[in-house]
């Protein structure tokens, strides 16, 4: 059995989502466990997904610390579309069906600091 524990279920864009993935099973040892931080947009339109970061491990307890991009997107529950953030874990088991788990979390808006965004605007202009 694979379990995801989040240190906080609400984070701001630009901050980190932290936690751990734990593998608990007698006799079964996964070849690897992949942990991913992703968001997806779903609703009436086409579903789209973006994996922000991921890593693999052979340990039974995998701590993770993913940075949520400052550009977002933010979690959103609208009429035609929803934006969902989640941590997904997948255990690759030999000679058995893979096990997976998903833990959703909420990304809310960070506090406004114009300098942060102006610098980025300047960088883009230079590029």
């Amino acid at each position, binding site marked *: 059995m694979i379990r995801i524990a989040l240190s906080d279920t609400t984070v701001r864009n630009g901050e980190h989502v932290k936690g751990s993935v734990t593998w608990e099973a007698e006799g079964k040892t996964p070849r690897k466990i992949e942990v991913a931080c992703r968001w997806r947009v779903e609703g009436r339109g086409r579903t*789209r997904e973006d994996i922000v970061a991921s890593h693999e491990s052979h340990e039974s307890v995998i701590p993770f610390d993913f940075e949520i991009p400052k550009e977002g997107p*933010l979690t*959103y529950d609208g009429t035609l579309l929803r934006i969902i953030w989640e941590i997904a874990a997948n255990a690759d088991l030999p000679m058995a069906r893979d096990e997976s788990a998903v833990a959703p979390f909420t990304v809310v*808006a960070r506090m*406004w600091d114009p300098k942060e965004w102006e610098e980025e*605007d300047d960088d883009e202009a230079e590029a």
Partner: protein
Amino acid sequence: MNEIQDEGPVLGSGLIPMIASIVLLVGLFVGYKAYAVDHNIGAAIMIGATLPAAIVAWQFIRLRRALGTATLHMNEELIPLGWSGPAMYVRPLRGATIRAIEARLQCEEHVERGSGRSHREWRKIVVDEPLAVQNAPMMEQVWVTIPLTIPRSGPPTFWMRDNEINWWVRLRLTMDGCPNTRSSFKLSVMPAVVER
């Protein structure tokens, strides 16, 4: 920063252009048939049928040239959630007078699915707030001050292929001396919120 989309003059309810188009099509058909019998009558019918459409087209071109393009000026380049400030709407106004201005702040979800014949799209306004405007008409142009407040709880601008969230300032001008006019301006709202 703000993308300008000026939709330009709106020719009433669209009924007059529709009638003019029908008269044009029917007149050309009847005139063509009559032309074989009597050249003069046929030509007269076709010319007569062309007149209403020509007048509508000429009026549209004249207004488009006269009114020009509207612009929306804002002091800040970047707008976060919870932002408050004025925006200035400027439109050339040659000879026309403004009777009423209706302005609204809207947040619109826009999604698409499929392609080709099975392509479908949906739009939904999820925030729709009337804006109190202050109008300062000049001789040659109109200046409208629009106090804007982006809701703190609203979503920021979002774009992913086939899925969008857009903020708009939309204005509708009821005018004397020319048909009604409307303008739409897309705002880019950042994913950050101002402190209370």
